[in-house]
């Protein structure tokens, strides 16, 4: 995955547990307020980020060990780049998945682009780009 060089405006690192999704959602609510992001666009961002974080919690640490969840957000002109990272084994089809498998398609439908891969430190990441102009959302 091609790394961007910009330092994130917001970076969160927290244990990958369900309760912390609310923390992430509130942080994005505050980010939207600070950057005056359109409410509908912010709702889409929060939904996509929630899905990505849920994927980390459900799929990344299946061995029972609790790992970390990292969320980075970078404002670039009319776009918001959000990266959700974990230290799990990576994204792969799962026959015993407890979900409906709608998470990634939903993320794709809410974003301008989504990239799945691993970063230079071999962490799994989902990199989402959101347009911030309502006309392009």
């Amino acid at each position: 995955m091609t790394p961007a060089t910009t330092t994130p405006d917001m970076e969160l690192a927290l244990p990958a547990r369900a309760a912390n999704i609310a923390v992430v959602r509130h942080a994005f609510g505050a980010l939207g307020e600070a950057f005056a992001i359109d409410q509908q666009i912010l709702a889409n961002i929060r939904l996509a980020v929630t899905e990505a974080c849920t994927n980390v919690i459900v799929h990344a640490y299946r061995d029972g060990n609790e790992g970390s969840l990292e969320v980075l957000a970078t404002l670039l002109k009319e776009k918001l780049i959000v990266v959700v990272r974990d230290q799990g084994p990576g994204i792969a089809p799962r026959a015993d998945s407890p979900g409906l498998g709608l998470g990634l398609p939903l993320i794709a439908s809410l974003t301008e682009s989504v990239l799945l891969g691993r970063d230079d430190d071999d962490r799994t990441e989902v990199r989402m780009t959101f347009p911030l102009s309502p006309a392009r959302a």
Partner: protein
Amino acid sequence: MTDTPLPDGPPTENSVSLRLANGPLAAPVLGRVVSMVLARADCPMDRLDDALIVCDTLSAHAPAYASDGHLTFTVATSTREIELRVCELAAQGAVKLLADAAVPGVGNVLERLSDELQIEQAGDDGSRESLILTLRFG
């Protein structure tokens, strides 16, 4: 994106690490994250309110002492306390930040609302500082 890890390593069981660009994000994001973490820790309302005043004070004054254009916080809770660290401040930044919290007629807001205050040196040459505030409840 930079791949610099947050300063205190992986999060512990009830902790959140937060790095924010120096600017309008600090106050709203820090306040919301701290309030969520404290609500989960069953913190009483009066101490939650105190913690948010502490967050507002830190957000107002810490940007002047950020060492790299970012503000870094860690928030850790137990059943009886919250520890809030303001990390990676410039040299003497923690002392100055603490001094800035003095309000005429009220006293020092951070000292009055915190049960414990510490300043830690960081970096090989001590060029970074952390201000550590502990608020107890329960």
